[in-house]
């Protein structure tokens, strides 16, 4: 028997050419995907016969230091399926306008020669406006020429600016890092017009508020290679395999290098498969588990014995040794504000004494004022804002006491809230008494207060647990009823986690993601593990720390990019709006809820307190106090306002500001936030690009359809806010269809495109040049044009250029002269505004004077030149040269580089002046690279030199070795390049070292951008104290009844109630790839509704049955996936399906087309996250503010009785 035949006639093998021919190709091009997946993977795009055939991963990443696994290959199932889109039937190839609008437009243009007049003929007539609004989303698209599409969009913009003001033109595009220039094209266009950019990171609920709370940082985390440096990794709420697909190999490689991997996840998920321990914490209760972990760590590694590394770390890098005043409250004491230097005689005269905090010095037994607190950051004398433990008064060395135990004046009973059981616990802490001008104060260290909060008694009197088995906060026994996890497991987890950190000096790590950050109390759920990490000395260590991965938020060359993107080179400040507030208010979701105290009760919040009431009132307060932005800013057109100010004799910009402030104080000018439903306060024109704003990210999607679009909706919720709202104006009839025009720029006919009025075809990621970076690795990537933009598509940069040109043309007649615009914006992070409001005081209630930029929002006057919009768009303006660039509080000059760019070109000439060119995307990319510390070694050096002056310590050595490095766009196309050390970021990357957050802080003593300059375990803003969140704590999840998700919804025969959660899915990134045939084939042809097998059996559902899922907010109809891996009572509907793909109709809601996952949700804002004007609680775009929770909800599910399409 001949088993194998290796002598085959060679002629009989000629057919093998068949497959060889298929493999052949004509060229390859490097690109990547701009999809907010955090991948930032380098791809090789194959082109054959001028057609993109497929893509494969590039494997040429520059290596990191020896001993780390390489990055190659990066790129997942979704990325590798992208080539399907290019020529797919869902590709938007031409501009489209909905027929109902196009008919009106053509009629209007016949009547009116002028496009702006034509637009006004349509939208000022309610019947005409309603005619095309009600047609939204219901088919009837017509292909139009670019000329027609641009004219409609430009006319609507000009008309809106003239009639309502430029801040009624808004734009939404997510996460610029994934395609920086495509974002920048739109934002530059909007900002040059005076329009508004909506934030994304907070709206997606990707912003981990605990990062600004703890570190004064939006987000800074380690790159994935650094996971390999860890020896104990706990993953929570982060399904690494699904969402960090190109990175997760580092986890398995770390495991085989001896690391332990623990997964907290309610379902047996893909990442659980990777774990040594899978701990199925009840959904949303991770915080409770970590509170108990902290109890064990404090008891065994601090109280029982001391670990020198931990103690030293806590003293140097955290607020733990700082002193807090105990303040009388409800007949007892509560932990209050930190003790300020100017309260004591010794420091009464120091500059910014209100903003310098004190520790107790062990040597002298006296309070001392260490350097690095925020008062030093913004003082006139520079060089003392550093983490040296020295007294800023006399440079004396300080050895701070962590605890007063054994040296206290007394012990004092203090009240701590047990939110879980709505109780107060009285526990004693050791205190010192200090004399102040206002009398004696009782103070304790934050460390001692933490010990008390966590219930580690150390022999002190009070309601302390006697053992781990006592069921009181926050013992291992206490957490059992919340988490379902046995105390023994929690104790062992705590011990292993801390012992690992002790032995490795902090190489214990938490990886965390959307699964945690989408809960209402996301900040508390984060603070609990942060405490464990800080107690174990992990942040600022390679292989340690809190590593939050959600959106692709890290735009490496942030300083130069934001100058271009926000048009700071021509005019500033920009109008930047936190989207959660915008959508909560403008889409009228606030009208459907009553007092937030129903679902977020604060025990003991009586009398005049902000810790109760209706969120929309607090939102309005946050706006008038300058904490949060809000656009439209006023109930008046900001251009007209300037005219009126000048007519009233206002002199210059200062005069305009003063006049405007006076109108606000008098109430003759109102914030739009105070009356958002009045027509003069509506947003009017909405640009959507690079995202799926109407569904994928639209929490409360059905309310978007109702109040923004004025089309059909499946919500049955009732409006209940009337009785609760006190300050904001209530209109009996809620507005439907606030938006005059929705423009979607897209390559897919996704849900947002389907519901928009105008759809413009954009180039895909293989058809344009752009830049990409991520926090998951440290390389800069290009997107490149493998083929020219297909059909009639154009890149986003070119589309917005074309729009700028068209607006400029129409402005010739309508806005021919430069005009002044008064811009209202909140107090700004990383500026002296951080010292604006030591206490909360409302000028409208006469608690203080109304002063712009201090107790009120900032007001600024900006000149707009609409005729020159296009020229400004394509050139880097003079303000960049004059003012330099900067980010995160770092600043550097670029005038010489600017001049060099003008000399060497390319340049744009305009009215006799020469500017560096931003004409095409490559020019813009090169400008950004050239002017950024991350990509130009000389800029890095000079930024560190500037930073040295503020810090008073040497830093430029960090940039010395790379001073001659300079990347161009072509360099990136040849090979991804690693970013350089930069003071705009906190990690260090020299010599292939893996980036880990806060190494710059721990190793070079650069302060964190917080109140004390240290990591904050304690938050003493007035609102935090009022809300009982000054300490890390546990608050229960808002319940279904309190949230009113099913007040109107009737249960049906054979239906059960489930907690619907919407984690990230395996077969798409958000909604992108969801409609891709490859992904649909490998999944179930749609996004199924995952149910526990026993729950499904209870209502007679078998796998792949059609189900109807419904609550007050809306309805979903899809197939079921029945699986034992889903916990009982919980259902998973992965984020994010599309209404465009295979969605049947809903019998329960009038047999209308059912919706997507966000049809079941409604957003709620946690007011404590609105706090502002105070140190790290000072607004910056995407950095601070309430997040767009909740994406979890409750709904009933039943078998679909009848399938109709």
């Amino acid at each position, binding site marked *: 028997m001949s*088993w*194998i*035949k290796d*002598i085959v006639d*060679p002629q009989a093998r000629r*057919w093998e*050419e*068949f*497959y060889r021919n*298929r493999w052949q190709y004509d060229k390859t091009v490097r690109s990547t995907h701009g999809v907010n997946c955090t991948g930032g993977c380098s791809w090789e795009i194959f082109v054959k016969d001028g057609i993109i055939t*497929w*893509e494969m*991963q590039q*494997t040429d990443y520059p290596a990191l230091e020896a001993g780390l*696994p*390489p990055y190659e290959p990066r*790129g997942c*199932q979704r990325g*590798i399926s992208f*080539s399907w889109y290019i020529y797919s039937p869902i590709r938007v190839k031409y501009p489209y306008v909905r027929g109902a609008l196009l008919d009106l437009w053509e009629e209007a243009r016949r009547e009116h020669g002028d496009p702006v007049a034509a637009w006004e003929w349509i939208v000022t007539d309610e019947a005409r406006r309603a005619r095309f609004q009600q047609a939204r*989303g*219901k*088919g009837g*698209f017509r292909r139009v020429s670019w000329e027609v599409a641009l004219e409609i969009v430009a006319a609507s913009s000009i008309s809106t600016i003239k009639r309502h003001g430029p801040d009624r033109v808004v734009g939404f595009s997510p996460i610029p890092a994934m395609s920086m220039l495509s974002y920048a094209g739109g934002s530059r266009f909007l900002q040059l017009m005076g329009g508004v950019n909506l934030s994304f990171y907070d709206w997606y609920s990707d912003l981990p508020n605990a990062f600004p709370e703890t570190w004064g940082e939006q987000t800074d985390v380690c790159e994935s290679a650094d996971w390999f440096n860890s020896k104990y990794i706990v993953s929570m709420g982060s399904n690494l395999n699904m969402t960090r*697909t*190109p990175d997760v190999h580092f986890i*398995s*490689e770390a495991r*085989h*290098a*001896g690391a*332990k991997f623990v997964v907290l996840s309610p379902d047996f998920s893909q990442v*659980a*498969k990777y774990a040594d*321990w899978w701990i199925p914490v009840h959904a949303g209760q991770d915080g409770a588990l970590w509170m108990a972990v902290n109890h064990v760590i404090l008891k065994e590694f601090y109280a029982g014995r001391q670990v020198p590394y931990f103690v030293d770390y806590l003293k140097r890098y955290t607020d733990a040794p700082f002193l807090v005043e105990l303040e009388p409250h409800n007949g007892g004491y509560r932990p209050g504000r930190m003790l300020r230097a100017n309260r004591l005689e010794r420091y009464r005269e120091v500059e910014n004494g209100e903003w310098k905090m004190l520790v107790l010095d062990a040597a002298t037994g006296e309070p001392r004022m260490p350097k690095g607190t925020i008062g030093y950051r913004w003082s006139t004398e520079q060089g003392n804002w550093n983490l040296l433990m020295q007294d800023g008064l006399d440079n004396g060395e300080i050895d701070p006491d962590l605890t007063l135990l054994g040296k206290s004046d007394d012990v004092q009973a203090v009240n701590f809230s047990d939110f879980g059981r709505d109780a107060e616990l009285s526990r004693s802490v050791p205190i010192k008494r200090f004399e102040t001008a206002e009398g004696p104060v009782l103070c304790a260290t934050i460390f001692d207060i933490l010990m008390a909060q966590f219930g580690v008694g150390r022999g002190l009197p009070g309601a302390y647990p006697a053992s781990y088995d006592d069921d009181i906060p926050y013992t291992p026994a206490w957490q*059992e009823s919340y988490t379902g996890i*046995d*105390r023994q*497991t929690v104790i062992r987890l705590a011990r*292993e986690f801390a012992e690992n950190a002790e*032995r490795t000096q902090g190489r214990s790590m938490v990886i965390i993601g959307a699964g945690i950050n989408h809960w209402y109390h996301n900040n508390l759920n984060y603070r609990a593990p942060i405490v464990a990490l800080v107690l174990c000395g992990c942040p600022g260590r390679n292989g340690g720390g809190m590593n939050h991965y959600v959106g692709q938020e890290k735009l490496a060359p942030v300083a130069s990019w934001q100058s271009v993107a926000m048009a700071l080179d021509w005019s500033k400040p920009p109008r930047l709006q936190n989207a959660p507030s915008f959508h909560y208010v403008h889409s009228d979701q606030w009208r459907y809820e009553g007092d937030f105290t129903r679902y977020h009760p604060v025990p003991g919040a009586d009398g005049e307190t902000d810790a109760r009431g209706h969120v929309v009132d607090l939102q309005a307060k946050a706006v008038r106090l300058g904490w949060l932005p809000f656009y439209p800013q006023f109930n008046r057109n900001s251009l007209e306002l300037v005219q009126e100010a000048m007519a009233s004799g206002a002199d210059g910009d200062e005069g305009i500001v003063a006049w405007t402030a006076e109108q606000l104080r008098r109430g003759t000018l109102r914030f739009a936030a105070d009356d958002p439903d009045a027509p003069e306060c509506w947003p009017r024109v909405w640009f959507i690009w690079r995202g799926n704003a109407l569904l994928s990210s639209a929490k409360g999607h059905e309310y978007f359809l109702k109040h923004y679009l004025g089309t059909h909706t499946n919500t049955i919720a009732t409006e209940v806010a009337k009785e609760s709202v006190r300050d904001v104006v209530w209109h009996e009839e809620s507005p439907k269809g606030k938006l005059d025009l929705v423009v979607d720029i897209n390559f897919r*006919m996704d849900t947002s495109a389907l519901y928009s009025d105008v759809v413009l075809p954009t180039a895909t990621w293989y058809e344009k040049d752009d830049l990409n970076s991520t926090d998951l690795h440290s390389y800069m990537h290009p997107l490149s044009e493998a083929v020219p933009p297909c059909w009639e598509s154009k890149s986003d940069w070119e589309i917005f250029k074309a729009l700028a040109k068209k607006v400029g043309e129409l402005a010739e007649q309508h806005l021919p002269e430069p005009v002044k615009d008064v811009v209202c914006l909140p107090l700004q992070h990383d500026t002296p505004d951080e010292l604006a409001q030591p206490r909360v005081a409302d000028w409208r209630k006469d608690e203080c004077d109304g002063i712009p930029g201090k107790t009120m929002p900032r007001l600024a006057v900006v000149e707009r030149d609409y005729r020159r919009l296009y020229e400004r768009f394509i050139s880097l303006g003079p303000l960049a040269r004059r003012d330099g660039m900067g980010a995160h509080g770092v600043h550097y000059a670029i005038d010489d580089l600017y001049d060099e760019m003008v000399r060497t070109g390319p340049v744009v000439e305009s009215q006799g002046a020469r500017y560096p060119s931003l004409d095409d995307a490559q020019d813009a990319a090169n400008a950004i690279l050239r002017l950024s510390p991350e990509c130009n070694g000389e800029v890095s050096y000079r930024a560190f030199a500037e930073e040295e002056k503020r810090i008073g310590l040497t830093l430029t050595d960090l940039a010395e070795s790379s001073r001659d490095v300079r990347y161009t766009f072509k360099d990136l196309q040849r090979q991804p390049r690693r970013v350089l050390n930069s003071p705009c970021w906190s990690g260090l990357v020299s010599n292939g070292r893996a980036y880990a957050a806060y190494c710059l802080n721990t190793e070079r003593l650069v302060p964190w951008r917080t109140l004390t300059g240290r990591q904050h375990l304690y938050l003493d803003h007035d609102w935090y104290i009022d809300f009982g969140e000054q300490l890390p704590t546990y608050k229960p999840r808002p319940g279904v009844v309190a949230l009113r998700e099913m007040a109107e919804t009737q249960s049906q025969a054979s239906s059960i109630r489930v907690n619907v959660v919407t984690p990230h899915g*395996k077969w798409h990134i958000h909604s992108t790839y969801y*409609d891709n*045939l*490859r992904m649909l*084939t*490998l999944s179930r042809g749609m996004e199924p509704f*995952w149910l526990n097998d026993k729950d499904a059996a209870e209502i007679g559902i078998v796998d792949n049955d059609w189900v109807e899922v419904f609550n007050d907010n809306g309805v979903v109809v899809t197939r079921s996936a*029945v*699986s*034992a*891996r889903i916990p009982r009572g919980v259902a998973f509907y992965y984020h994010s399906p599309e209404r*465009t*793909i*295979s*969605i*049947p109709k809903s019998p329960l809601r009038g047999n*209308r*087309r059912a919706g997507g996952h966000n049809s079941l949700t409604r957003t709620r804002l946690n007011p404590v996250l609105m706090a502002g004007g105070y140190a790290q609680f000072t607004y910056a775009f995407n950095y601070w503010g309430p997040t767009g929770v909740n994406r979890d909800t409750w709904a009933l599910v039943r078998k679909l009785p009848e399938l109709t399409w």
Partner: protein
Amino acid sequence: MDVRRQVSMVFHLDKCIGCHTCSIACKNVWTDRKGTEYMWWNNVETKPGTGFPTLWEDQEKYRGGWELDGDDLRLKLQRKGGALANLFYNPRLPQLDDYYEPWTYRYQDLFDAPAGDDQPTARPISLVTGEYMNIEAGPNWDDDLGGSPIYAANDPNLEGVSEEERRQLTELERLVFFYLPRICNHCVNPGCVAACPMGAIYKRGEDGVVLVSQDKCRGWRMCISGCPYKKVYYNWSTGKSEKCILCFPRLETGQAPACFHSCVGRIRYLGVLLYDADRIEATAKVQTNRLIEAQREMILDPFDPYVIEQAKRNGIADEWIDAAQRSPVYKFVKSWNLALPLHPEFRTLPMLFYIPPLLPVMASMKKATYDIDEREFFGSIESARVPLRFLANLFSAGDIEPVSLVLRRLIAVRAYKRAGTVGDITQAQAGSMLDAVGLTEEEAVAIFRLTSLPTYDERFVIPPYQREAAMEELFGDPLAQKGETGFGPRARPRRGA
């Protein structure tokens, strides 16, 4: 000794993340055309699960592979009356429903729907009939335990797993899944080759890649039945069968196959094995419990001077011997006994080997709380969530010992690395764990390095193909080929030809 060479493969399942990037890399390049829609030369299955095509492992249903009949080895398919009797009617052939009906959507409706009173949506339509369809199956239908009461519970590998353990597999304490990526095993004793009545399937001498000649194939489809892994597919458009070609056009140009290249979990290794063709028959005929051992014995030591001499006599170039010596596959399969064949009892001598996965430890429920009572730092194999019997049914024909040894070795290496970097496991403890599984410290370091740190070139040691020599044989002068390649017509397989 008849030394042959095989480009062989290892998949490290502990590293597999179930992402299916491999599947799409393959689909994009090879099966994205008419007639191949349903083909997944590379697919990934969730285990426990029923796989693709459904229940492919159930050879009572499909009669794939070989069986011993006394001293004879014969195709299971030929059990009754031989193959030819069933040439025109093969009841063992998987049907469309065993795969799935490929579909797409009426995407165009989103653009073209006339103005109406409700939102348009793109409904699924069959790629076979063009009609509206209900999607009831797909190539990855039971992904991540989707439909687990129907699919996972019917995994053929649960045979011999106790009722108690089966029940627990759906409970919190023991619930588990992992992934099994599959391509053609490029077997040394391939069932497909033996089953083909046309002699259209051959195993290439230079690298062992098994190919279906698109010239010779007449679409009898006996190969589909003969392959117990169901890795040959019928192209309904060309009327020919097609299968994984191990991306030979890439191999021939020094590149890893697309699915290997794109494996973002970095689980795949590729390298040359030398084996003794004289021992194929005997190896395929050993008793079931000896199969793994016998196959390892068939694989030759590329450092052995006698093997080298015999290899050269068979015309194997020095460079290939060098590649065999550097082969990561050789290390995992033979030096360390860490990689095992999938279903060796099918007796096709598959040349793709799997390192079975470590999985989370079990827990126990105490009234209402979940407790991990395992006391070993990394857990022990006894406490692993997946019953060893299940893994043994997959990778060692039901014999627990080989699987157990692999897992204990993986844990020992981890413990050794932890002892050296953290110290909460002591050096002495780690040393005794290594001793117990027969590994030296040097081996532990080497295993760690090849598992955790390998670069692209260390994972894929691709032998030099010397195409000029092959072309000389095929086309004559390579210089002429330099000028002519690509000018010829791109011949497509023709139905019936």
